[in-house]
């Protein structure tokens, strides 16, 4: 079986810092794959590479068989890869609901659909997802006035409303009220099983990623250190070393 996302020998350097050094990962369709590693190990850099935010120096990135490493950010998004950010990025001057309405899947419609008012169906879809992340009460509030954690949840809902084929999440539980973390994990699992959404998740919170992912890659100093099932990673001497060494 070929993977949905196949990253092969991707290298990216910033001056002298090699943030990604011949990194290869593969994400099968329908899977939840984890990406861990100490601070500065190159996780976010790999997301930037996959989504076309930064051009890579070498290597190949294939999505559903198509080479995407030379495509523009927008083209990659419209091909079905949507990401969230470590520092949430929302449209601060729009209401929470308008953030949802402008994010709803555009790649399905042609551009003239932009010149329509959001209809009842679109609003219902937006509200359903706002309810899903527990922000329905905040729908008329300016998104810029939401707390950090609420903005992370909104960004997740925005990404879901875009109906991507694959979702890249950069530390989805960081900054979220600890009592809400379990429900976020639960919702991600539902999104995966119910909407058939493939997930690639960066996470610092070990219990979270062990619970969520079926397969985990670990980066250290820009290189792939290990990969395997959560159990295998948890007991990998190199991984333990990297985390203890970094701590």
């Amino acid at each position, binding site marked *: 079986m070929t993977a949905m996302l196949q990253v092969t020998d991707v290298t990216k350097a910033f001056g002298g810092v090699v943030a990604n050094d011949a990194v290869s990962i593969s994400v099968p369709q329908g899977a939840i794959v984890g990406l861990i590693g100490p601070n500065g190990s190159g996780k976010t850099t790999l997301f930037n590479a996959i989504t076309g935010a930064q051009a890579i120096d070498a290597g190949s990135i294939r999505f559903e068989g198509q080479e995407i490493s030379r495509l523009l*950010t927008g083209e990659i*998004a419209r091909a079905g890869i949507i990401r969230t950010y470590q520092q949430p990025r929302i449209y601060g001057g729009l209401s929470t609901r308008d953030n949802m309405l402008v994010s709803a899947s555009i790649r399905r419609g042609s551009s003239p659909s932009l*010149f329509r008012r959001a209809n009842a169906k679109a609003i219902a879809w937006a509200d359903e997802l706002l309810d899903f992340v527990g922000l329905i009460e905040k729908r008329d509030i300016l998104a810029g006035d939401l707390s950090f954690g609420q903005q992370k949840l909104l960004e997740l809902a925005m990404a879901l409303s*875009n109906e991507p084929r694959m979702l890249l999440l950069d530390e989805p539980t960081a900054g979220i009220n600890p009592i809400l973390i379990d429900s976020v994990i639960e919702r991600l699992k539902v999104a995966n099983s119910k909407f058939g959404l493939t997930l690639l998740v960066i996470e610092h919170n070990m219990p979270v990623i062990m619970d969520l992912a079926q397969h985990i890659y670990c980066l250290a100093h820009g290189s792939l250190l290990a990969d395997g099932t959560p159990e295998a990673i948890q007991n990998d001497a190199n991984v333990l070393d990297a985390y203890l060494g970094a701590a």
Partner: protein
Amino acid sequence: MAEYRALTPKRLLLIASLLAVGVAAPLVLPAYQLQLTELLLFIVFALAWDLVGGQMGYNSFGNVLFVGLGMYGAAIVQVGLFYDVGLYNAARGGGTQFVFDVPQFITGLALGIPAAALISAFAAWLLGSLVLTMRGHYFAICTLGLGIAAGQIAAGIPWIGAGSGMLTPNPPEALGDVALLLYYLALGLAITCALTFAWLLSTRFGLALNAIRDDEDKAEAMGLKTHAAKVTAWVIAAGFLGAAGALYGNVVRFIDPVQTAFAGATIGVWMILMALLGGKGTLAGPIVGAIVFQIMKELFWTYLLGWQRVALGLLIIAVAVFFPAGIVGFIRERGSAKAKEQNQ
């Protein structure tokens, strides 16, 4: 959605009374007819600036480019349909050989105004792919340069009168009150502009412009076709600026390349000031701002002659310091603060 409100009877009544005021104003205040026409064109300038500057967050300092293109474009069509433009301008539009009868004058206006809109829109489309890839200060400086360059280029083309400018066709006596005709054309344009923008801003296109304003890279990463949206907004704004420029040229009659057509230091700055004064990024803001600005301007020019520019400068500073969100923004902030209080 942000600007969309249902057409309740109350709103219909408001629109109807505004329309009645618009239709009656020049008849009730004949002494201010010219200022009222100018006000309507200012409303179009401010609205068009705000679509790109306020709603989309791209602060253009060169919108006079489209005003001037429309002004010259219309004048050239109005004259060129019946006479040789070069000869007309060489004769400074004078003499007995350059006379426009009623059908000629009306035909000129009827074709000149839409042509002006198309010329400006087309120029925006051509420039858009270049200029709109720049952001922030780069975009602002680049547009400023375009506006200045356009004036200098126009001043160097003898065919359109070069530095001595160009006259729009002399209206035939038989037509009667041409000023009133121009007023109603300006009224029609301002209403068309406001309604078009109200509709645009009620669609997802309006939200896309706001998304670009708030975080363009995010919008791109969410799959929005940001470049196409930016060019579209810029082209629509330019079209209205061109049509307004066409009317403005016919109102003032004499088109000076730098003082009237590509007048960056006056019209170019004023349209931004009007949008900021009223509240940028809102539909009502530029309209309110244009009205307040025109009243202030007339007062300054009447009572503070010699100091009018100083007074205008102080007004700009006062707006920036005391009303950063503009009049409409200020009222809305107070409204939402009240609503918050009541919630508690």
